[in-house]
């Protein structure tokens, strides 16, 4: 029994994949096809990843030796602010949206997103937001108060350049893009699933995207409100965060982290979803504990709004408040951490194939455990009192963002590249890339834990020549350049494979979900007919019972 797929029907009037027009590259600009938009999101992400990475390398060069003078203090401050802002808002989020808008319709058996034009709007407004943010470099200086831009340092009297204004406007624009995409994804997932795909049969990636979209819709308004207030402060002399006129420094921290901590889960849940697809396929088994993984993501989304003040243990909120947020932060660690064992149990008893995608997934297990454990250290208030705002935090957050988000996204890239281009991403070079990237990453950040324990604060443009500081920082810089080199390899790999890679076929991994039931890449209309879904692995069921 099979079901014809009509909704939503993409119109031939819209340019998209498989529709030949004479427009050439212009076709990309005018496209509303979710697949082209997905690819463009990923390209935007790659572009900003290169820029943000270059900023990181400049910072690491400055920090390679004690009392170094490669960058001036202002330049260093602008670079670390832009590095953080870029990596969160212009790399992690676009990459996640790229995979989400490309694969959500394919995995639920739909032909398009619910609102194709809005989809294109979201992409471009995000991109323009990013461009606006970067225009600040030409307009008199980039923002220089850190990516969380604490008051009152973000006020005109301490940061008189236009950088913070560009930060505000840029983030508001990308924020609009994120919110509209989330609305789009929620409506698509709730209304356009193929017959039989109940919510408890959704592929876990789509589950995570769904939960994530709700999380995003609830979290972003808080940032937007804070940004609007900051804009009023800077442009109309309002008094929200202007501490010399009765404003409050802590209000900004509260509003920012009510957004900021859910944001951390916003960039980790979809990679969790990707891994929950990758592990089963390459272990040849269903996921272990589907219900736990799905339900725990909802728990994470809800708890995420009750943990924000663990970023503020050192501001003097008092032991009672600190203890409350300590408990909630530990609590959220459980649904997050236990997933590691779900994935391990998925692999257990399987027939594991070590493709590059699977290698990233397995490496993720170890890296994310390290990031998660140092995260638990920060939920223990007294330890946080010692180590917050040191290099220990820098190490922790990079183990979560790179060891978690980026490793997950790279597993997704190697897993889905054949579907997106019809060509395999070169596995042999891919393994070189994996080792170079993974080793470079650990060399860079493992030593930073020690630097934090030795008392090195974060966000310093230089440091005195104290024992171990020089050598550990130098090691970290060497690792950073290894990662830089590995990124060049990845870019070469992607464009080489796209041009002359091995042809992939429709289903190179013998996978389980619906995106592999169509051509690679699929036509403008993704599906004409699909089997009715009865289980969580529709394609597997279909292949078993011809």
């Amino acid at each position, binding site marked *: 029994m099979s079901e014809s797929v009509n909704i939503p029907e993409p119109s031939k009037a819209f340019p998209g994949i498989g529709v030949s027009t004479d427009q050439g590259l212009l076709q990309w600009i005018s496209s509303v096809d979710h697949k082209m938009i997905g690819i463009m999101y990923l390209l935007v992400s790659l572009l900003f990843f290169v820029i943000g990475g270059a900023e990181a390398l400049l910072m690491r060069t400055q920090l390679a030796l004690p009392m170094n003078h490669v960058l001036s203090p202002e330049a260093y401050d602008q670079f670390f602010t832009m590095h953080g802002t870029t990596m969160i808002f212009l790399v992690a989020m676009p990459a996640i949206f790229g995979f989400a808008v490309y694969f959500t319709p394919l995995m639920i058996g739909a032909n398009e997103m619910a*609102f194709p034009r809005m989809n294109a709007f979201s992409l471009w407004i995000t991109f323009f937001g990013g461009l606006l943010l970067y225009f600040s470099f030409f307009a008199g200086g980039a923002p220089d108060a850190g990516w969380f831009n604490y008051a009152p340092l973000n006020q005109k009297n301490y940061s008189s350049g236009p950088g913070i204004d560009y930060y505000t406007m840029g983030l508001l624009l990308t924020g609009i893009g994120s919110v509209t995409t*989330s*609305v789009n994804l929620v409506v698509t997932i709730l209304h356009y699933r193929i017959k039989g795909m109940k919510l408890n049969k959704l592929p876990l990636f789509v589950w995570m995207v769904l939960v994530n979209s709700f999380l995003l*819709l*609830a*979290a972003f308004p808080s940032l937007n409100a804070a940004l*609007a207030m900051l804009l009023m402060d800077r442009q109309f002399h309002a*008094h*929200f965060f202007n501490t010399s006129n009765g*404003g409050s420094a802590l209000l900004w921290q509260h509003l920012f982290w009510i957004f900021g901590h859910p944001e951390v889960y916003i960039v980790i849940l979809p990679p969790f979803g990707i891994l929950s697809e990758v592990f089963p396929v390459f272990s040849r088994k269903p996921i272990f504990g589907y219900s736990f993984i799905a339900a725990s993501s909802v728990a994470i989304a809800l708890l995420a709004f009750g943990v924000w003040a663990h970023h503020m243990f050192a501001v003097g909120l008092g032991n009672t408040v600190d203890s409350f947020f300590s408990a909630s932060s530990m609590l959220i660690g459980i649904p997050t951490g236990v997933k590691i064992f779900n994935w391990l149990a998925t692999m257990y008893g399987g027939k594991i194939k070590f493709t590059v995608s699977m290698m990233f997934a397995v490496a993720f297990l170890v890296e994310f455990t390290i990031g998660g454990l140092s995260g638990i250290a920060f939920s223990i208030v007294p330890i946080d009192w010692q180590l917050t705002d040191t290099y220990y935090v820098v190490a922790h957050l990079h183990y979560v963002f790179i060891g978690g988000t980026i490793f997950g996204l790279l597993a997704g890239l190697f897993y889905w590249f054949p579907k997106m281009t019809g060509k395999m991403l070169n596995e042999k070079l891919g393994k070189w890339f994996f080792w170079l990237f993974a080793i470079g990453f650990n060399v860079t950040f493992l030593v930073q834990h020690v630097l934090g324990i030795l008392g090195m604060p974060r966000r310093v443009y230089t440091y005195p020549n104290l024992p171990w500081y020089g050598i550990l920082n130098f090691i970290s810089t060497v690792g950073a350049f290894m990662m830089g080199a590995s990124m060049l390899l990845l870019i070469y790999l992607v464009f080489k494979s796209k041009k002359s890679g091995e042809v992939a076929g429709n289903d190179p991994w013998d996978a389980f979900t619906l995106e592999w039931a169509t051509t690679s890449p699929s036509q403008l209309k993704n599906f004409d007919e699909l089997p009715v879904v009865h289980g969580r692995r529709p394609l597997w069921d279909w292949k078993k019972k011809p």
Partner: protein
Amino acid sequence: MMKLVVGTEAMFFVSLIMAFIYMAYNAGFEPHEVQQLDIKTTGIFTVVLFCSSFTLMLAEKKYNSRKIKSLKFWLAATIVLGLIFLIGQGKEYIRLINDNITLSGSVFGTSFYALTGFHGLHVFIGLIILSIVFVLAFLGDFNKPSSNVISTVAIYWHFVDIVWIFVFTVVYVLPHFTKI
């Protein structure tokens, strides 16, 4: 979709209202500034805005029972009531500014104008949408029964009203019962 938009907008107003309350307790408003608010007049305009929700509800009802003429009438009534509310808010602003309470003057001014201003902006946007719907009604877009435009717009308009109830309570009513 509109429900999601309203949900995310609701979080935005929660942030603004929490900021207002936080500023009230943390920085401390000048009591004389709080007392300058005209609770009576604004109370009347609050009733006006509240009525506009009912008129829009009636409009929706008329549309469902295919009475296009009454639909147009109640839509117009809604727009007029909304306009009256905005004019009322404008008068309040002018009076306060004449009394030297401005956005850049004090912490109270900052919080007050930001919160009520963002709400006013939402009323204004709602009026634009309603006007478009009104014009579309004359162009005959609603002669057929299948449209859900009016019910979607209504969700937004009711939301704006409900937000005002909260804003009014927090800004105008509560300070009379608590010591700020």
